[in-house]
């Protein structure tokens, strides 16, 4: 072939066409005979929300006796051990007094009904959780999909920074193997091991199968659970109709557990 300008330009054109067609051919090649890949997905019944929140109507609780079944339901289901030594205590949800739950909202001569009322406290699943900021291994994290502050026990190194970071004392450390302290093991749920921190998980395992948390179920309607950012949700209705308070709100952690007093 003669080396004329015309022929060289033709050659360039054909080369450019070939180079351009290659990715297209590759794409076609992949389409065919492609083996099915295994897939992971969310269950069909799973409940979803932008930020799960809880409203506790404390007016419905009169004595520690009213809270017992709620605490029991949670601790039994999650294999939370009971130890007599207070230093080894593990708690996910527990009872306290008004002045301890709301130290900066208390007053002198508090009215008697509030002063003697039992308050349920648990992890607040803050929208701005300080525990997650301090965790060096990202073992505790705020789940983007539904705002639950969760623990990945596999990754927890037991440094306890999160326990210092949490202003609510919501976290407990396993100073000893928890298994001897578990009276009845629930074999559907794992236990923890010595050396990890644990806390309430807003029953993430139940939400995944379309059920509400154990405490909500055991509360006979005194605790409501729902999406904080859905204006139609039950919790939002309650927040609209009742005056509610949150624990240590001034710290800016934005707790997602609200109390009607």
């Amino acid at each position, binding site marked *: 072939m003669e080396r004329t300008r015309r022929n060289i330009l033709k050659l360039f054109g054909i080369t450019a066409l070939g180079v351009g067609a290659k990715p297209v051919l590759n794409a076609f090649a992949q389409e065919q005979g492609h*083996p*099915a*890949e*295994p*897939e*992971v*997905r*969310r*269950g069909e019944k*799973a409940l979803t929300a932008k930020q799960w929140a809880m409203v506790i109507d404390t007016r419905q609780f009169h004595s520690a006796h009213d809270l017992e079944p709620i605490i029991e339901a949670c601790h039994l289901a999650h294999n939370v051990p009971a130890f007599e030594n207070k230093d080894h205590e593990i708690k996910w949800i527990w009872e306290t007094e008004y002045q301890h739950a709301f130290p900066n909202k208390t007053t002198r001569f508090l009215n008697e009904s509030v002063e003697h009322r039992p308050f349920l406290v648990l992890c607040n699943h803050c929208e701005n959780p300080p525990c997650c900021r301090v965790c060096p291994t990202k073992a505790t*994290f705020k*789940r983007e*999909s*539904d705002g639950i502050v*969760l623990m*990945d*026990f*596999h990754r927890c190194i037991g440094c306890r920074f999160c326990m210092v970071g949490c202003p609510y004392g919501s976290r407990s450390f396993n100073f000893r193997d928890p298994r001897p302290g578990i009276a009845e*093991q629930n*074999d*559907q749920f*794992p*236990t*923890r*091991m010595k050396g990890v921190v644990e806390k309430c998980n807003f029953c*993430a395992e139940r939400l*995944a199968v379309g059920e509400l948390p154990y405490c909500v179920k055991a509360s006979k309607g005194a605790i409501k659970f729902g999406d904080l950012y859905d204006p139609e949700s039950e919790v939002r209705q309650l927040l609209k109709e009742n005056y509610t308070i949150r624990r240590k709100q001034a710290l800016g952690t934005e707790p997602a557990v609200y109390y009607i007093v």
Partner: protein
Amino acid sequence: MNDKKWIIAGIVVFVAIFAFPLWYNMGKAAPAPELKLTEKAKAAKQCVMPTEYMRAEHMQLLDVWRHNVVRNTKREFVNTEGKTFNMSLSNTCLDCHANKADFCDKCHNYASVSPYCWDCHLDRSKENG
């Protein structure tokens, strides 16, 4: 080179002692363990993925499961045949392989690995008999 015979004898003795573990254990390699399957596992014929894959890659599979359950709110696994499984070590794996001592431990001991799954996850085989 007057000490040649001593040096050579010394080297031979040294090599013999140094290689002691090799020649002492020669021909005595422990046989690979035979896995026992439960009736339920036999009936199912195939695990969540083909046997070959499971044998070699079950730890990677479990790692993917763990990550998706704990962090991504995804708890269902759909295998290449379209079957759906709940991604749970205690509730799915051990439901079929209810003989942890004969299934998991045997191989792990042989391979001298000690995974710490069971520090937290419950071995349900104890109650299943």
